[in-house]
């Protein structure tokens, strides 16, 4: 019997502490054949199991261009994520996916790309960033605007450093006022404001954003001011999910099922949805 | 009586004393009585009062109903039994007395369920609470509509619930256990009992707390038993026997039985009856050196 709710077993190969209560797991499929055949596209998500506690939904935070297993990044905030946070390297957890749609990278060939992320919204964007950087020649200018509440809350700190060092990426980092440390060299201010100051050109460009709902709302406004068309602004939505496959009935925003028709949407598509966020 | 009620409601809305009157009205097809929220003086004629006004509207005074609270100060059409719940809400600091205008309704009894109504209120279609009611003339109010009913409750309570409790008390514990496991096995975890109860006002119910998972949410015998027993315990010494949970249960679980039994137990142990004194705290939230310890075995 094909049980669509049955997860694959994964081994936790590595754990990175990203920020307070935020962790990244590197996961490898226990099933060798599956490890070879597994494929996904950037932007897709999965359901991750802490056995005995349940399942939680996060994006696949690693890019499909890195072929060794997958990574996920999550904040410890509830029963399942609390359980996952209690696991160690070598432990077993569950994964089912990949589910949902993806960022249309092939349509972006030759274009500039602006990434805007806030806090724990960076993981899905990070998958796109590495995917794009691994295919660097195919795209134009790359700008990354990333902010968090405080310096401590910035995730992927070592990768931020890598992007900062690269000559072919413009990285703007910011923290909310009051969140800076004495040695902070980045900007101080909210992401939408910092984005407007950075003023990336909208000509032949797309923008990819993810973060708290309120940030996304203002980022879309800021991008509009900068001249980005709604069709050129991409984001990934999240909602509470249980099945991930269009059955359990809770992730819908009006008539749109985030798990099946999303999670990746353009701002133009979002504006057509019922106001059910 | 309805005229006096409408007049009062109109007056309260007109002079701005209240912003909404929570009362009873007919549904559109005129087949059933349903809660109505009157915010305009010209709509007061929708208000009715008759033996089918079974709902305990005090649930709409709780913080579960933020939209209703947002309208402004309410007046509530309340029978004596409903007022008991308002008393508990005040005693438990969910409501200040001045936050609500109580339109007390003198009452001659209600039907157990609206579907039983065939045009006449006969004793056999009335719930046990009505047969023993000592608040047919309200005990806490801002005004009362109607005359004092002549009814005097019997010295010894009567009714099906008491008969059944006696029968259950005569059984041994395994018999009682089997009875309740069977009754609760039908539970579908729709939580109508909780949602309709004005004393179940927690914003996050224990069954929704999952760190740890106190109650298994599955509707299997174990989960059903732990849900129903936990809810009963949370109502011990607080429940006023309004009967809304049993009335609302889509699978006919006799919740009145378990609630009445706990009312009897708390009354015996603490000499406390819930719903009469808004200044008295329920026994389960106060400690007294005189509390009995005979339950420690």
């Amino acid at each position: 019997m094909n049980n669509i709710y049955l997860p694959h077993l994964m081994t936790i190969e590595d754990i990175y502490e990203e920020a307070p209560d935020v962790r990244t797991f590197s996961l490898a499929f226990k099933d060798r054949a599956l490890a070879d055949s597994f494929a996904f596209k950037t932007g897709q998500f999965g359901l991750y199991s802490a056995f005995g506690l349940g399942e939680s939904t996060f994006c696949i935070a690693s890019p499909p261009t890195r072929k060794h297993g997958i990574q996920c990044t999550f904040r410890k905030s509830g029963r399942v994520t609390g359980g996952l946070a209690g696991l160690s390297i070598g432990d077993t957890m569950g994964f089912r996916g990949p589910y949902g749609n993806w960022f249309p990278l092939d349509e972006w060939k030759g274009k500039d790309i602006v990434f805007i992320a806030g806090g724990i919204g960076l993981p899905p964007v990070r998958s796109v960033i590495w995917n794009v950087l691994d295919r660097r020649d195919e795209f134009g200018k790359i700008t990354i605007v990333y902010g968090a509440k405080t310096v401590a809350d910035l995730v992927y700190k070592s990768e931020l450093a890598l992007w900062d060092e690269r000559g072919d990426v413009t990285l703007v980092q910011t923290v909310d006022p009051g969140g800076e440390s004495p040695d902070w060299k980045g900007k101080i201010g909210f992401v939408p404001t910092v984005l407007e100051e950075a003023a990336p050109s909208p000509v032949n460009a797309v923008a990819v954003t993810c973060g708290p709902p309120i940030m996304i709302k203002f980022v879309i406004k800021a991008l509009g001011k900068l001249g980005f068309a709604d069709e050129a602004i991409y984001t990934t939505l999240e909602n509470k999910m249980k099945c991930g496959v269009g059955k359990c009935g809770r992730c819908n925003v009006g008539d749109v099922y985030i798990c099946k028709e999303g999670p990746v949407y353009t701002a133009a598509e979002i504006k057509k949805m019922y106001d059910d966020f | 009586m309805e005229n006096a009620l409408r007049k009062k409601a109109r007056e309260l809305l007109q002079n701005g004393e209240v912003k909404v009157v929570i009362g009873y009205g007919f549904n559109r097809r005129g087949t059933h009585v349903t809660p109505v929220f009157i915010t305009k003086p010209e709509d007061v004629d929708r208000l009715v009062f008759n033996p089918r006004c079974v709902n305990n509207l005090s649930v709409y005074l709780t913080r579960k109903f933020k939209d209703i609270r947002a309208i402004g100060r309410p007046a509530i059409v309340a029978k004596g039994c409903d007022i008991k719940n308002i008393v508990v809400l005040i005693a438990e600091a969910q409501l200040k007395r001045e936050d609500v205008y109580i339109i007390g309704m003198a009452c001659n009894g209600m039907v157990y369920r609206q579907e039983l109504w065939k045009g006449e209120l006969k004793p056999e279609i009335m719930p046990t609470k009505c047969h023993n009611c000592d608040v047919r003339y309200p005990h806490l109010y801002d005004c009362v509509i109607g005359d004092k009913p002549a009814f005097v409750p019997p010295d010894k309570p009567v009714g099906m619930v008491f008969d059944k409790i006696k029968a259950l008390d005569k059984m041994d514990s395994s018999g009682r256990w089997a009875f309740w496991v069977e009754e609760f096995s039908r539970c579908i975890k729709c939580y109508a009992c909780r949602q309709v109860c004005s004393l179940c006002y927690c914003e996050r119910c224990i069954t929704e707390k999952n760190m740890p998972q106190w109650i298994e949410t599955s509707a299997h015998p174990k989960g059903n038993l732990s849900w129903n027993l936990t809810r009963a315990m949370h109502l011990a010494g607080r429940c006023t026997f309004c009967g809304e949970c049993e009335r609302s249960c889509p699978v006919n679980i006799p919740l009145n039985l378990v609630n009445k039994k706990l009312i009897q137990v708390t009354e015996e142990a603490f000499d406390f009856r819930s719903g009469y004194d808004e200044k008295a705290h329920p026994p389960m939230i106060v400690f007294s050196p005189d509390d009995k310890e005979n339950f420690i075995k």
Partner: protein
Amino acid sequence: MTDLFLKTEDLGRLIASVRDGGARFIAPSTDARQTAFKEVSGADEVVSDYILATNSYKEFLFPQTEVISTHKVMKDSVELKGVELEAQGTVIFGARPCEAASLAALGAVFTWDFVDEFYTKREADTVVIAVACTRGDDACFCTTVGLSPDATAGVDVMFKEADGGWAVARLTDKGSTFVEKHKDVFEKTACAPKPLFYPEKIKGVDVEKIKERLSNKGHYEDPVWPELARKCIGCGACTFTCPTCHCFDIIDEGTAYEGERRKNWDACQFDHFTLHASGHNPRDTQYKRWRNRFMCKFKFYPDKFSSKGCVGCGRCIRVCPVRLDITEVMEEMSKLP
């Protein structure tokens, strides 16, 4: 073909014949002061003077709680086993034609791209015998949503009450196979069925128009929604008795070392249904939850699955502790410009 007849006294033979074949026979039966679908072993348990069973028979295809996998957490590994469902043949007797129409909606959602075999395996092994309605009440509104007391959607075999028994019509291949298998209990005589009960079509309500109105996003924030839903107490009685509601939860139960994963009915009316771990809740007030349920029935389902989201059985009206009547909302929605 309506040339068969089942005598009232032969229902017991039919039940025995079905059960001898290893299938369960589900029928309306009165227990605990109400008539509900349950498995019966003889005709004496089956009642006929009911309007509609209080539960919908969906629970025999989509149980309220079911184990989907089991797990054992060991020191170095996890033993995970998916449940291999052995669907038991099921005969649903005494379904009403309204609720039978709900199978199209359930089937659509459970097979939409990903196939939930827990549902499809059971459904494939289920025969629905509907008994056309000769009685109803003021909550019935099948005619308003385009159905009727002898509507055939989702029905394999239609029974119509007649003097001394039922006129039997085979409507699907599954139904024909069923009748063929138990042919000994049926008689080959035609008969005149009793008149049916047609609920009055509610004036001014047009489901097609409602769908159109709901497509206008301007109506999404119409003040009529909070007004209509104000009395809703947020329980799940309507969704759990509804034959088309399908929402569920997935939870783990057991100890830290051993347990099972279950698929449990859930209700969009519960406030934590859509609550994010962050505390954000897209449907944070009751009217938004109620609006979602209504739109799901009259807009999202018809659009997405080309199926009826509401079959007019009226269970949600009968069971509602505050008598929130969905037909009143339909009337209001029909009035929107």
